[in-house]
């Protein structure tokens, strides 16, 4: 029988204690929303897009801001847009000129997905 064994090197308790002792990174308080020219804004925080589901009228500009300590890349699943690497506090904007549902993700952390619905 195939057995799978996991080993956490200091032992699970130690790792848990380690995490508790040094403290996990606190969730950053959101800064005031930045909505240039009445557009919509999406924050990237803790490896997720928020809000994950944005509904906007045609012609709206969406601005993404990275609040994480690691870079992210905002990329459309349909290759409609792709940001440069966004370091902490960097922005990326895209104006949606046609109605539809636009799924996007982080090109380097692809588990991060979200969408913009343009009506």
């Amino acid at each position: 029988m195939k057995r799978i064994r996991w080993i956490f090197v200091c032992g699970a308790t130690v790792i848990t204690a380690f995490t508790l002792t040094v403290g996990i990174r606190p969730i950053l308080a959101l800064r005031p929303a930045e909505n240039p020219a009445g557009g919509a804004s999406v924050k990237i925080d803790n490896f997720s897009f928020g809000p994950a589901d944005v509904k906007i009228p045609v012609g709206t500009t969406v601005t993404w801001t990275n609040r994480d300590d690691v870079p992210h890349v905002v990329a459309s699943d349909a290759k409609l847009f792709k940001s440069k690497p966004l370091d902490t506090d960097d922005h990326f904007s895209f104006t949606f000129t046609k109605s539809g549902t636009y799924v996007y993700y982080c090109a380097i952390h692809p588990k991060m997905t979200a969408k913009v619905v343009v009506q």
Partner: protein
Amino acid sequence: MTDFIRDNINKDGIDRRGFLQCMAWAGTGVLYTLHGGILKSLPLMQGAANSEHMAKMKGADFSFIQISDSHIGFSKEANPDVTATLQIAVDRINSAAAPPDFLLHTGDISQLSKPSEFDTAEQVLKGAKAGKIFYVPGEHDVLTDDGQQYLDRFGKGTKGKGWYSFDHKGAHFIGLVNVVDLKAGGLGSLGSDQLKWLQDDVKQLKSSTPVIVFAHIPLWAVYPEWGWGTDDSEQALGYLKRFGSVSVLNGHIHQIMQKVEGNVTFHTALSTAFPQPAPGTAPSPGPMKVPADQLRNVLGISHVNFVQGQHSLAIVDSPLAQS
């Protein structure tokens, strides 16, 4: 065991001493030795203890060192000076009683794929007394120009996006790339071109050949919720099933984890830059903040051996500060 918990104030199974010893993992590398086809590893540490561990490794066919996740260019609170900690790792390498045959860097050399970051990394790593450094890219190394800069600097002579293999003293090493062309909602990805190459690459090898695979993102499902896995790794490992000894070395998650499955031993290395939380213990896998003096100055050792056998698998989890 020579270690025991003396002051378990918080009833959490660890005292200050144990905690600090854990912290000594940061900023080091991992030494691997091959004994008759069996790969063993132990993190590098300082001073006399290092010599003792080096002595233990006598009789090995050869040794090499894995370092990972240098993130040169990162300057946030978790480690404002990642160049210094990479330098410490290089110093550890250079303090080894016998120099390793070569180094493996399992990616995230840089933070933002900037030329200046790569320059710094190359300069520091140049000081390592090792025959050669073999690289695979992390996602941070291919952020711009489709990874061309990485290939020009670190991937000369490789195939595709930077994959390759080489033989060393009877063992077959395979460097894989699983950080490009990632799909929305997915994990790391090898892609069909690379898988086909891998299948061809190992075709001529005898099943008794020890195979060592290295790639940035783990080739096993460490924690898919955080993207810590590779979508098509099973297919890749399928090509390696007939081999009696397969070792898979990864980085990306900035902590040591091991798993043994069949004839395959999986191991992830520490970062030289900053730690990341254990799976699921934080809202996200972002850098874990640790007091700088603890990160850089605490001495101690962690001793991890993993042994891969032909049939009954032996895993020896050695406690810290074991002599």
